[in-house]
């Protein structure tokens, strides 16, 4: 780390100490004059003052004046937590021409006066000791300068659901090159499967399809569907991404989406888009509004791949778009920012669970119901029950399946199930006004805009019955295949048994299986619930611990469509801010290798959670080399180096040991100096 020219490493420490009263916050407990006086006795200290408010303009001016007049090359500010005002005082000393890294803060407020309020003498002694620790540490400070890295003006968005689509539109519209990667043959995600959306009743595909088309048409967005991210290397501003484009066995540039091939294809398989209820051919588009509208051959079921004989689709295609010999393609991209929008999957009820999902045909999940009430679904929107294809009259919803359940370790609320159950009840009632619908719930969570109103509407206008209680047992009538639910109705304090024609499990949301590989590639932290963790739950909701990587939508946690869209726009904005600036400042906290001591054992490289250290040949010897922009400054490598050859800037072994020695040399441990 080189020193900038105007702030050369000084020969001898000329130290200034400033003890802040913070009004009475510190001064009311700690005798600040006395602390300043004790500090003034320490070798090297030429100024030691107590200030009413060090952070005020007046206080800062006092510090700057002392730097200039006394030629201070170390400043110790003993005031509040560095987490609050470190930057204030760094800027302050920089204003007087001192390298900001020569300023050190001592925490006398949060960690002294406020926690020893009834022991002013002991607090004063401790404060003096804390200041001494700070002074001894600051002797070893060095001039540092933050490093700037350039940010490529391009963004990789992983996941083409509504969150990814929205983020791509926003970033593309700002003029940045955007790559939208989707593993399925079409973008759209789970939203494309839904019938209507709560609480307004908008048709999901009707509001989604225009956005899908728009993103495909956006000049700055390059859509990579049926593709997977296989590797990401690099750091903020400079990521190198490898993408594997799976073979569709249909040339995208030639396919016009006419569908003649699928008409001729002799193979019928259950359509996963319809949750297996409908069927599709081995050459298919998942749904009519698919974007891109390009056919894909499902290799596992295609007769040509199985027997080598069938060529019906090849013969049918007038554009000669079908190519059974297509190979996977690897694409390498350079991007400055990454947005992870890998979404969710729905919880699958366990095989041995009380709801008998795997045994009883007339127990279905909510996502299956979405397809069965969808006009574009396998039944044309006419709700029938799986066992006999008859329209059900008595329908029960069971809430919190796979949510708020400690037995399966999903403690969290999935946030959408209450509302989608109400929305689906309303749709069913609109189609069959004579239906009887009951919702078995634990608590109703109708917290969003317009949600409570929907809750009232379905109860009052549609007569949906809400039963508080978690069903204990489901049994099937062997003849009718109707389902009897045994449950304790907690509001009535009664155990009841009621018969239904169809039971819908309101399954919760779980992380999409596609998230885990991306999470590993980027070393992203995960929350307790298994979803990706944001940097700060309140103030950095789309940032992650990895600079330049942002998250949005259900990859971060269960949420509804408006929240996913809002978060996608936030992630797009955060990524754009980096790209607009074109550069990113990295705090000089990185690891620093002393090559004379390094023996190239590689332990540090193994310890580093960010792959920031490599062992490289240098003049014929193996040495650890740190990529500063990748290093996050945790210091784990420094703690593990058997040679003490690797150190962390601003937190060197010697700095920490100076602090330690000063702490333990104090005369009286409870009081201090």
């Amino acid at each position: 780390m080189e020193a900038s020219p105007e702030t050369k490493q000084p020969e001898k420490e000329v130290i200034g100490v400033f003890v802040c009263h913070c009004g009475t916050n510190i001064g009311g407990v700690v005798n600040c004059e006395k602390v300043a006086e004790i500090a003034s006795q320490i070798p090297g200290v030429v100024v030691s003052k107590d200030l009413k408010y060090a952070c005020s303009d007046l206080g800062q001016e006092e510090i700057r004046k002392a730097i200039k007049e006394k030629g201070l090359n170390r400043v110790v500010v003993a005031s509040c937590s560095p987490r609050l005002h470190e930057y204030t005082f760094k800027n302050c000393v920089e204003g007087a021409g001192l390298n900001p890294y020569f300023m050190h803060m001592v925490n006398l407020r949060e960690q002294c006066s406020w926690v020893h309020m009834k022991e002013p003498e002991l607090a004063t002694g401790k404060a003096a000791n804390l200041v001494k620790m700070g002074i001894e540490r600051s002797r070893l400070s060095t001039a540092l300068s933050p490093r700037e890295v350039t940010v490529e003006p391009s963004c990789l968005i992983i996941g083409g659901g509504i969150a990814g689509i929205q983020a791509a539109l926003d970033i593309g519209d700002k003029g940045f090159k955007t790559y939208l990667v989707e593993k399925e043959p079409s973008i759209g995600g789970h939203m494309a499967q839904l019938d209507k959306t709560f609480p307004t009743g908008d048709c999901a595909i009707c509001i989604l399809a225009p956005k899908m088309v728009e993103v495909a048409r956006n000049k700055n967005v390059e859509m990579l569907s049926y593709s997977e991210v296989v590797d990401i290397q690099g750091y903020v501003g400079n990521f190198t991404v490898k993408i594997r484009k799976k073979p569709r066995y249909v040339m995208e540039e030639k396919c016009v989406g006419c569908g003649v091939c699928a008409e001729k294809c002799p193979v019928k398989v259950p359509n996963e888009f319809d949750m297996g209820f409908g069927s599709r051919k081995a050459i298919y588009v998942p749904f009519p509004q698919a974007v891109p509208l390009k056919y894909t051959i499902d290799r596992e079921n295609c007769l040509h791949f199985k027997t080598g004989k069938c060529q019906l689709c090849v013969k049918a295609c007038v554009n000669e778009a079908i190519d059974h010999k297509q190979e996977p393609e690897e694409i390498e991209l350079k991007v400055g920012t990454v947005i992870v929008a890998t979404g969710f999957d729905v919880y699958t009820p366990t095989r041995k669970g009380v709801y008998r999902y795997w045994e009883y045909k007339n127990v279905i999940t909510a996502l299956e119901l979405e397809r069965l009430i969808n006009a574009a679904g396998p039944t044309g929107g006419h709700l029938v029950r799986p066992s006999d294809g008859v329209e059900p009259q008595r329908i029960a919803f069971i809430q919190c399946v796979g949510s708020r359940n400690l037995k399966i370790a999903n403690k969290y609320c999935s946030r959408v199930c209450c509302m989608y159950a109400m929305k689906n009840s309303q749709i069913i009632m609109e189609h069959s006004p004579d239906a009887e619908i009951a919702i078995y719930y634990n608590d109703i969570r109708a917290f969003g805009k317009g949600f409570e109103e929907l809750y009232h509407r379905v109860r009052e206008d549609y007569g949906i019955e809400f039963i508080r209680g978690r069903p204990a047992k489901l049994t099937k009538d062997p003849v009718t295949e109707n389902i009897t639910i045994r449950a304790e109705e907690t509001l009535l304090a009664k155990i009841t048994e009621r018969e239904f024609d169809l039971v819908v499990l309101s399954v919760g949301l779980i992380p999409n299986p596609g998230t885990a590989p991306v999470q590993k590639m980027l070393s992203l932290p995960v929350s307790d619930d298994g979803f990706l963790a944001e940097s700060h739950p309140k103030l950095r909701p789309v940032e992650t611990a990895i600079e330049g990587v942002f998250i949005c939508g259900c990859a971060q946690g269960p949420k509804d469509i408006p929240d996913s869209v809002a978060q996608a726009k936030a992630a797009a904005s955060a990524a754009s801010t980096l790209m607009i600036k074109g550069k990113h400042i990295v705090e000089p906290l990185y690891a620093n290798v002393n090559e004379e001591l390094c023996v190239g054992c590689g332990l540090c490289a193994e310890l580093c959670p960010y792959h920031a250290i490599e062992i490289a040949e240098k003049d014929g010897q193996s040495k650890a080399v740190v990529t500063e922009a990748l290093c996050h400054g945790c210091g784990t490598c420094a703690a593990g180096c058997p040679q003490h050859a690797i150190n962390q800037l601003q937190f060197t072994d010697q700095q920490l040991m100076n602090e330690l020695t000063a702490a333990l040399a104090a005369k009286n441990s409870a009081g201090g100096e």
Partner: protein
Amino acid sequence: MTEMQFEPKIIAFCCNWCSYAGADLAGVSRFQYPPNVRIIRVMCSGRVDPSFVIEAFKQGADGVIVAGCHPNDCHYISGNQKAATRAEFLTSFLEEVGIDPSRFKLEWIAGSEGEKFASTVKRMVEEIKVLGPLGSEVL
């Protein structure tokens, strides 16, 4: 303060993101604890070299705390796991050299756990007062 009563010296290495923030929150919430502790701020509990802990005992600390983020909550992904591995090693090492391993504690203290920080310090001070100054144990 009389010289007669034993007042333990305790060093607490606190990670910047969780435990140091937790200590700050203890202050903001005015949770009181004994002044025997000296916090040394590190960016991550993974920064704490086992030799720092040994050095602290060599220089007369009566107790050492290493405090970091809860498992899966580490600001640096897995630094706290490394701290945990090192703590295991330290515990057996301390026993080996005749220092009661209860003088060393690894604690997970989140930025929201001001109360936990205060109670951890309180408990540690009480326990070490019972144990006596470093070196008084017979193992």
